[in-house]
């Protein structure tokens, strides 16, 4: 159980980089697209978001690198010595876990290059099409890396596609929360209201895709269970769904109440606090997803 917990922690660390790279860059493009003469994404917003992105990518690198040694340790189950056992490391590396790790390390390396390259576009007035393409390609690599091991490793192409779409949309949503929290520091309340309103409209699309892909994937996995369905899996999945419902509640509250009533400077604090709450629940969703994919199979 200790090994599974360590593997879950390594997964959460990896997810952090995926979420920040996809979501934070999506927010940059969103703000740039909606940019007008009265909006400047000032350094107060840019610097902390960029710093968070770099920190997340380094944590992600550590998490992705730890999976093969942790798997080796779990296989041998003889204390931490298994993590350095050459045969167990070889078995782990030459399995779907190794393939997934190679893919993940490549994606993180590309994300780091993309972040370093993108730095000059983040504050400038132009966005390079080549940079946008590299961001999309890296995001696709991140999403694809979720289809190599675990419950979807031997699933159909449709299930893999749904997993990738689900990951992309979830990262888009969760990764946009920290930039939104920082955006709440904008002193121009009317400008903030317009930006949050536009964000809410855009978010409806990806949250919709997230829910549809998640529901279809769950149905697909359930319909293809051979034997008994694992009730522990259903229980943890139920917890995840409750938390996602709470996040949706937060999102609806922002969109239709807080943002709609954002008129004075003090209201910014309310919006910010509420987004922090949503981000906290989002972190719990990530943790539960890591536990679910490491510890439980849908079928016995």
């Amino acid at each position, binding site marked *: 159980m200790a090994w599974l917990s360590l593997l879950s922690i390594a997964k959460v660390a990896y997810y952090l980089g995926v979420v920040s790279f996809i979501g934070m860059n999506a927010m940059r493009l969103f703000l740039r697209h909606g940019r007008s003469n009265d909006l400047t994404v000032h350094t107060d917003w840019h610097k902390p978001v960029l710093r968070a992105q770099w920190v997340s990518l380094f944590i992600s690198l550590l998490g992705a690198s730890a999976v093969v040694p942790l798997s080796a340790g779990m296989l041998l189950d003889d204390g931490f010595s298994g993590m350095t056992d050459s045969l167990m490391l070889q078995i782990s590396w030459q*399995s779907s876990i190794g393939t997934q790790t190679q893919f993940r390390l490549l994606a993180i390396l590309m994300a780091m290059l993309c972040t370093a390259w993108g730095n000059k576009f983040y504050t400038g007035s132009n966005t390079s099409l080549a940079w946008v393409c590299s961001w999309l390609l890296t995001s696709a690599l991140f999403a694809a890396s979720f289809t190599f091991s675990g419950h979807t490793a*031997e699933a159909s192409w449709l299930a893999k596609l749904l997993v990738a779409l689900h990951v992309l949309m979830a990262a888009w949503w969760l990764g946009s929360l920290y930039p939104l929290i920082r955006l709440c520091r904008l002193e121009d309340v009317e400008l903030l209201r317009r930006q949050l309103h536009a964000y809410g409209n855009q978010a409806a699309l990806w949250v919709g895709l997230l829910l549809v892909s998640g529901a279809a994937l769950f149905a697909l996995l359930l*319909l293809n*269970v051979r*034997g008994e369905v694992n009730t522990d899996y259903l229980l943890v999945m139920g917890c995840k769904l409750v938390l996602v419902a709470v996040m949706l509640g937060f999102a609806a509250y922002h969109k239709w109440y807080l943002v709609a009533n954002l008129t004075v400077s003090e209201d910014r604090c309310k919006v910010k606090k509420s987004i922090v709450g949503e981000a906290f629940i989002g972190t719990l969703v990530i943790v539960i997803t890591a536990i679910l994919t490491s510890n439980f199979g849908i079928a016995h």
Partner: protein
Amino acid sequence: MTTFSNWVKSALMATALLSASVSAHVHLASTVPAQESTVSASPEMLTLTFSGDVKFIKLKLSDDNGKPVKFGFKPVVKAAKTMSWKLPELPAGDYDVEWTVMGNDGHKMEDFFTFTVEAGHNHHAGH
């Protein structure tokens, strides 16, 4: 409402048909000696067959006193559905076989089975 529920059913059927695989972990399909069987003589080979390719990580054979029987098992890097190991002469008694494998999806699986070698036949089966 009926139309909607028909649409949902059709969509679920379509996704089920489009998916080619089933969600179940690889499992131990058969063993020689068979699980919980009693053999009349010491078996020559220990064979484990799984429902899909696995990597054999650990295999421990022990007698009814818990004493391990050495038979030259080593972890295998290459995945296989079936693997066999030559056994030494086993005295009469109950035996536990504890196995640990890794499936193609990267999951570790472990379990055990038992068999009994009948008293009075201390020679390899088939000899």
